[in-house]
């Protein structure tokens, strides 16, 4: 099945009683059983069933099956937010004394998790230039238990050499975790050798700015039976290839509780139907806007892999199928004052955070989502005071070009 067909039909079954094509929202905290034996069998895992919605819920299961189908994964666990998915996946892998080697070009929330929380827990995080594989390799030590990178980094819009990352991960027998929020369903994760795909389903999977959510999909590429993670050993014995997903559900969700609401699972599932349709248009608009921005005299640089001039263009084509290069671009103007002038002059695009809405979203990263970081930290993340990040929406492309043109024209001429 090609992606558009998978979007509509993948992981889906009709209701056997009613023929309903949409699954219901099960707003039930817990589930009753006809006898104690059956309930015990469900707890033991020898019978299928749900017991408590912190751990599983029929609506979440239906959403997880659809996500697994999208990515061709062996299973998915949904989380309450993208950051719950990122932290859940990594806390599922890492213990005190372990090392995580990660790209420094990261979403700010992930940066903060790596720099503030993990060191307090005794997890050593080595942030390196993710575009330099020799730097990644040099950071690996004998306690490295996971590698982490964003497929398209936010907001620096670099495209990592995922084949290189995956080859290194295989060499050191560490799972490669990739945040693929910015290119949903456009990566052949298992073929590349990526162990886990992490998503903020808030973004293009929902696609309409309606609610927050996250997910972790196990692609099946990493052989958990060979994993050196001591805490996973009992799960590997019980569940084999499903070991990590079982751990995520039975320990991370059970004990840390970052569970997605059934209501949001239904909403995000409904976005999957039109994912490819929407994403194609987002990407076409992004390219048209990027091409225009490249011609405006007030713009110092445009960061978008769809541009042939981008250092990541060829890699993006090879990794993501050749047609789409993402729906996020960043551009830089002279300074913060100029960036604010542009943003405040926009009439179609909205000044706000988030990505992947139907509307175009524009943000001055330095003074908002990255305001808590030092200039050095921001530099490592590829952020400077003149950077504007744009999540390009589904409006008419010419309307977007016209909007950004008049906004850029509002920057006063400098002597």
């Amino acid at each position, binding site marked *: 099945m090609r992606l558009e067909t998978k979007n509509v039909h993948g992981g889906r079954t009709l209701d056997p009683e009613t023929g309903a094509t949409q699954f219901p929202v099960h707003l039930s905290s817990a589930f009753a059983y006809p006898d104690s034996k059956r309930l015990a069998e469900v707890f033991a*895992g020898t019978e299928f069933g749900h017991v408590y919605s912190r*751990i599983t819920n029929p609506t979440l*299961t239906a959403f997880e*099956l659809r996500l697994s189908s999208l990515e061709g994964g062996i299973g998915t666990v949904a989380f309450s937010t993208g950051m719950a998915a990122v932290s859940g996946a990594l806390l599922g892998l890492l213990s005190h004394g372990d090392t995580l080697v990660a790209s420094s070009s990261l979403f700010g929330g992930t940066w903060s998790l790596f720099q503030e929380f993990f060191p307090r827990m005794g997890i050593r995080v080595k942030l390196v230039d993710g575009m330099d594989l020799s730097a990644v390799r040099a950071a690996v030590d004998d306690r490295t238990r996971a590698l982490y990178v964003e497929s398209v980094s936010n907001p620096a819009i670099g495209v990592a050499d995922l084949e290189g990352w995956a080859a290194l991960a295989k060499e050191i027998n560490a799972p490669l975790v990739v945040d693929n929020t910015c290119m949903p369903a456009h990566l052949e994760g298992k073929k590349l050798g990526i162990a886990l795909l992490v998503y903020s389903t808030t973004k293009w999977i929902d696609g309409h700015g309606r609610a927050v959510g996250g997910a972790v999909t196990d692609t*099946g590429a990493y052989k958990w039976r060979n994993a050196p993670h001591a805490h996973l050993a009992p799960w590997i014995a019980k569940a084999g290839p499903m070991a990590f*997903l079982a751990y995520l559900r039975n320990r991370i969700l*059970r004990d840390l509780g970052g569970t997605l609401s059934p209501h949001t699972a239904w909403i995000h599932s409904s976005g999957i139907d039109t994912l490819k349709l929407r994403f194609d248009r987002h990407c076409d608009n992004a390219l048209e806007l990027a091409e225009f921005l490249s011609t405006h005299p007030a713009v110092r640089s445009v960061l978008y892999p769809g541009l042939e001039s981008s250092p990541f263009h060829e890699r993006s084509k090879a990794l993501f199928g050749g047609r789409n290069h993402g729906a996020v671009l960043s551009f830089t103007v002279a300074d913060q004052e100029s960036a604010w002038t542009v943003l405040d002059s926009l009439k179609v695009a909205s000044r706000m955070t988030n990505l992947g809405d139907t509307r175009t979203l524009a943000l001055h990263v330095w003074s908002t989502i990255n305001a808590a970081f030092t200039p050095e930290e921001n530099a490592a993340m590829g952020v400077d005071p003149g950077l504007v990040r744009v999540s390009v929406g589904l409006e008419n492309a010419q309307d977007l070009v016209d909007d950004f043109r008049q906004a850029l024209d509002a920057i006063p001429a400098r002597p």
Partner: protein
Amino acid sequence: MSIQINGQQKDVPAGLSVTQLIAHEMIKQPLMVSVEYNGDILDREAFETTVVKDGDAVEFLYFMGGGS
């Protein structure tokens, strides 16, 4: 032929693959079930190609988790 399914002796047609056995036994949520075949958890890719034999022991397992 006679095999063990989740600890119970059962007669099933000969020559079934694991995928076919799942359908024959009307196992719930086939996309979510894990299969332990003669003590080893099978990779999902092996479901189609593993043919069940007389005397085999098969466990259908779900890692859904318990609650509070």
